[in-house]
């Protein structure tokens, strides 16, 4: 059955943003805390450490446990399986055992009949600690040899030799802060015991299999005894890739031991202080250019602040290296990265996964060169953009490159020269208001850098009434996955969208799944859905041909449920033919499987072809700084983004806008503040600010670079989840440039985010 002509080419399907949205606007979508509570349900509250490092001398919770309504208080010794939740490296206990390593580390679990009783118990628990030294700075940790994993080094060419041939060589240091995910739905899970010593867990997780594995390990049972079900998340952004597992394990442990339903939902302040964030980085760079401003050599050393346990930091570290040269061709590169162990909550995945941190340093280096040489950064950026045939520091050869085409398309619409002139004229006129602009090209590799994870499965059922159920391993968290999966199935079968329902993500239906992350969810799961649909079609086509006496060589396919033979509509339709197929005992279910071809990476040589393809783009950002108050406004962000042949522009534009604004937040107002004792000061929405409706750019204009090149993206529609976040880095440089327009002698350092405080101090500082 060919799928040449289907409704997915028509407009309505492309602007279809998902089956969930009708429920979202009516408040009918169900999140974990909305699941109807079962009788006898217990509330699970975490008792966490108030110090960042120390020995637990005594734990006294007898009084708390005796309170009316308190059922049991769990400590490490009550764990029936292994007290271990570390995903990549087994270095993190579920409940502290003897020692604590960060403020907010779970020590005990209170299981109570009411939230009030749990709360009261919390205040009755007494712990004595013997404090140990606290490290919050990654460089200090590095100096003391505290590393979470072995350091990594990517090398291309010979930087030492290359620097000798450079006309200009500059060195500098940068700092980039972390970022709180602030998914609106906090971490949480709901679990209840089922037959055969098993548990069913509803978790707000991006990684259902990770939750299943962790719960099985903590409880000491088989993965087949743990069923994890995820309907949707109220936001994830990486924060629920690994870190959801702990709270699911807690709910599951209580349910398993006490044989009662149990719910563990963090309140906002618990979530903020207990969970890890985007990894802060401190970095040193050295950059060398020839007199034409071609970058010849780049050395960078990253000190990643990993927090108290590895979590996903080793993998994040790797992606920082992959993206350390951003969108530029640099023939000689030496990029080193250290994952440093500090006494902060274990930092974790966050949209971009270390990539943005690496790219920030590259952009700082270029900006620094530009300022020293008295040119604008865009001159250097444009000169060094990647082209087909160039080599990344990790050995992959650049192909189907769109770095220059995105930049040039943007420049065609807005003349950078003209903007420069306008801004200079404005700044001359206005003493206390200054404008600034920046360009931000991006290049982001698509695939899990851990090759093993680049596989997916899907289960497709065609029911005897012609309706279709699709299950995948992907989790819907607002990124429009379900809409895309429906589009894929509708296109493959040639049926209307209303026939298709995307089921919850369930580990008993689709197993051994990779987390919904790395922007690859739609690619991987979509291809698995395609595979499953194809298998069913392969059984249907011969059957239909036989049933309707159609010639073997005739082409048949469905369009909007109607059967076409050799391009001509028939009176037969999907529903009717499926009913007959069932009677004739055709297998109407299939399990699809997909493993990304081509990709490989050898960690011993740090070379390979880790990415299925790359996504490119360029953003222009213009801002205005009030030089009296040190505040700023973002005027415009104009983006040309390499979307491939977007299968759903509405969803993809939404991802671009949302990612951009999240990136801007990271670079401007979002400031994670810990004190020297490792205590989080920005511990609530009142002290940690993410963009509100007034702080987003007055104008965001996103244009897709539409390409039809062959690639491994689902329906040639390139992955879009993470890359747009990095356009936000442009805001940092635009604001910084405006500060410099007011005060060319400022001592402002390369330290993101550029908060109003940094702006004002920068405006009135002297070198």
């Amino acid at each position, binding site marked *: 059955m060919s799928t040449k002509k289907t409704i997915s080419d028509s407009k309505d399907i492309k602007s279809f943003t998902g089956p969930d949205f009708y429920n979202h606007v*009516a408040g009918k979508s169900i999140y974990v805390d909305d699941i109807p509570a079962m009788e006898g349900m217990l509330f699970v509250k975490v008792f966490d450490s108030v110090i960042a490092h120390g020995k637990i001398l005594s734990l006294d919770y007898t009084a708390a446990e005796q309170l009316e309504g308190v059922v049991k208080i769990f400590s490490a010794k009550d764990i029936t399986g292994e007290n271990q939740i570390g995903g990549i490296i087994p270095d993190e206990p579920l409940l502290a055992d003897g020692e604590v390593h960060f403020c907010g580390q779970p020590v005990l679990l209170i299981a109570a009949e009411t939230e009030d009783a749990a709360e009261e118990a919390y205040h009755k628990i007494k712990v004595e600690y013997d404090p140990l030294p606290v490290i919050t700075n990654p460089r200090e940790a590095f100096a003391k040899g505290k590393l979470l994993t072995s350091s990594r080094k990517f090398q291309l060419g010979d930087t030492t030799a290359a620097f000798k041939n450079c006309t200009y060589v500059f060195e500098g240091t940068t700092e980039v802060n972390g970022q709180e995910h602030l998914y*609106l739905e906090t971490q949480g899970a709901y679990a209840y015991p089922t037959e055969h010593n098993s548990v069913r867990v509803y978790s707000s997780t991006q990684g259902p299999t990770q939750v299943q594995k962790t719960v099985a390990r903590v409880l000491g049972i088989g993965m087949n005894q743990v069923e994890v079900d995820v309907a949707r998340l109220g936001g994830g952004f990486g924060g629920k890739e690994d870190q959801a597992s702990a709270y699911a394990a807690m709910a599951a442990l209580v349910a398993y031991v006490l044989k009662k339903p149990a719910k563990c939902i963090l309140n906002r302040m618990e979530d903020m202080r207990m969970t890890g964030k985007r990894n802060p980085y401190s970095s040193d760079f050295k950059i060398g250019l020839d007199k034409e401003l071609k970058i010849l050599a780049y050395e960078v050393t990253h000190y990643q602040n990993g927090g108290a346990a590895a979590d996903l930091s080793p993998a994040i570290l790797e992606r920082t290296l992959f993206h350390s040269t951003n969108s530029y061709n640099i023939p000689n590169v030496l990029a080193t990265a250290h994952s440093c162990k500090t006494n902060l909550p274990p930092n974790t995945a966050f949209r971009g996964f270390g990539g943005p941190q690496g790219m920030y340093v590259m952009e700082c280096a270029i900006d620094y060169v530009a300022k020293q040489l008295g040119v604008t950064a865009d001159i250097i950026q444009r000169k060094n953009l990647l082209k087909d045939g160039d080599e990344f520091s990790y050995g992959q050869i650049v192909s189907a490159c769109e770095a220059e085409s995105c930049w040039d398309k943007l420049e065609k619409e807005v003349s950078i020269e003209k903007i420069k002139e306008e801004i200079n004229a404005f700044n001359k006129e206005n003493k206390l208001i200054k404008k600034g602009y920046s360009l931000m090209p991006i290049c982001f590799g698509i695939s899990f850098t851990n090759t093993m994870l680049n596989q997916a499965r899907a289960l497709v059922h065609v029911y005897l009434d012609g309706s279709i159920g699709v299950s995948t391993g992907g989790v819907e968290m607002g990124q429009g996955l379900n809409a895309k999966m429906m589009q894929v199935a509708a296109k493959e079968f040639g049926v209307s969208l209303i026939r298709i329902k995307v089921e919850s993500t369930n580990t008993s239906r689709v197993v051994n799944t990779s987390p919904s992350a790395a922007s690859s969810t739609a690619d991987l799961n979509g291809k698995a859905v395609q595979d499953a649909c194809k298998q069913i079609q392969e059984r249907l086509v011969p059957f239909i041909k036989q049933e309707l006496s159609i010639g073997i060589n005739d082409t048949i396919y469905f369009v909007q449920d109607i059967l076409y033979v050799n391009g001509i509509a028939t009176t037969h339709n999907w529903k009717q033919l499926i009913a007959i197929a069932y009677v004739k005992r055709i297998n109407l279910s299939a399990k699809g499987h997909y493993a990304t071809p081509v990709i490989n990476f050898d960690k011993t040589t740090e070379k390979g072809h880790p990415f299925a393809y790359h996504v490119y783009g360029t953003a222009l950002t213009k801002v205005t700084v009030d030089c009296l108050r040190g505040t700023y406004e973002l005027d415009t962000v104009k983006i040309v983004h390499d979307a491939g042949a977007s299968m759903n522009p509405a969803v993809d534009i939404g991802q671009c806008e949302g990612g951009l604004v999240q990136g801007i937040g990271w670079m401007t107002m979002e400031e994670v503040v810990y004190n020297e004792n490792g205590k989080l000061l920005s511990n609530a929405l009142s002290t940690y600010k993410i963009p509100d409706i*007034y702080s987003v750019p007055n104008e965001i204009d996103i244009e897709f670079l539409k390409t039809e090149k062959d690639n491994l993206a689902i329906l040639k529609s390139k992955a879009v989840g993470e890359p747009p976040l990095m356009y936000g880095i442009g805001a940092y440089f635009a604001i910084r440039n405006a500060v410099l327009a007011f005060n060319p002698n400022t001592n402002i350092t390369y330290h993101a985010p550029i908060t109003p405080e940094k702006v004002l101090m920068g405006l009135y500082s002297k070198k």
Partner: protein
Amino acid sequence: MIEFILNNQHIKTTQPSGSTVLDFVRYHKRLMGTKVGCREGDCGACTVLVGSFENNKLVYRNMTSCLMPLTNVQGKHIVTVEGINQSELTPVQQAMIDTNGTQCGFCTIGFVMSLTGFVMNETCCSYTDAIKAIDGNICRCTGYKSIEKAANILSNKITERPTSNATEWLVENKFIPEYFKNIEDRLRLIPNPVSQPNSSDVLPIGGGTDLNVQKHHLVKKSETLNLFDNPSLKYITQVTDEIKIGASVTVAAFEESTIIQNILPDIKKYTKLISSSPIRNMATIAGNFVNASPIGDMTIFMLALNAKVVFNSGREIYLKDLYKGYKQLDKTKEELIQEISFKLPITGSVFNFEKVSKRTHLDIASVNSACLLKLNNEGIIESAHLSAGGVGPYPTYLTKTATFLTGKKLTDDVIEQAINIMQNEVSPISDARGTKEYKRLLLRQLFLAHIQKQGVEVFNLLNDISA
């Protein structure tokens, strides 16, 4: 016993008067559309509409149910998303879908409720009003651009709305269900007892926007004294040259008052910097005073108007004399603020309010400041009032600086001296809102912004003064 209407249902409940509306609708009535995002008024996921009588007219406002104590719903109409749902999507819901204004959906109900409040508010009509209605709703997914488009669609739609008694039109156009037509009559049947303190142990509560953030466990268990709905505390009047304001006037009512708008034409520009629409709908001015946060915006504002506070005991003091130390007030536990008053600024005075925070809107100030200066024809300062927050343990009236300025001309030299005096009057500390060095610099800048508003060029001063 608290009696009110929840959506289309008449409720009589004995739930504790200090428990929150959020817990009541979500966990008691299991209306799960209303979400919990923060429980501190800062995200808007829990937004509901509250209908009550203002000047004998039923008016709906959006409020954050996580902070609203149950005592404040007596005799009112509480509307959750379940209360506006109909067999088909409402135009607000449809607009959110048509513009892709939802992704993960967790914030969406809050936006839908706030925008529904916008279309129901007969005084709102512009796109700016629509955005203002959702300025307390945070979304982490969309980047807001799509939601702005939804707001635009809706502000265009309501151009056809009648200017008064719009309920009929709103029902006809499916913004709200049929049952809304009878709500007014049904509400009038519910008694509206004025609560009286029956023991000294009751907890006086205004909008609850401070109490329920800081002490919600205490509030939940306490017997509360509802000041918010006490009609004798809700007025703004002008008596000759004096403005008198009831203690329970909200920030929203303050900015909407034509009396205030006449005296302070920029009032809405200032209040836009204070919290968000749903919070301003709840936050009372007296609550801001008594909370005594060092950055209390309305306190800083009123200090520069040299406001007076009148207690129910009859005692009257200047606001600047209310503060004795960090959260220490010249007020007994039993004393309640009855009224706030200030003298009409003398004609020719210029008032200015400044606030800088990490995020310009819906954020607590790093430093805020207000200033009221009256210059005579020769440019000599006849009277000066100056206040600053975030630079000391309580909202500070800068007595020395104000005294110094009085009788002087605003020359560069005088301004510089004033800045020096001011810096000696304050004692900022470093915290999550900024280092003390930043706060000192910012205070100087905000003072210069006041001076700039007098029409004085300040650029040269900036070059001369080093940070």
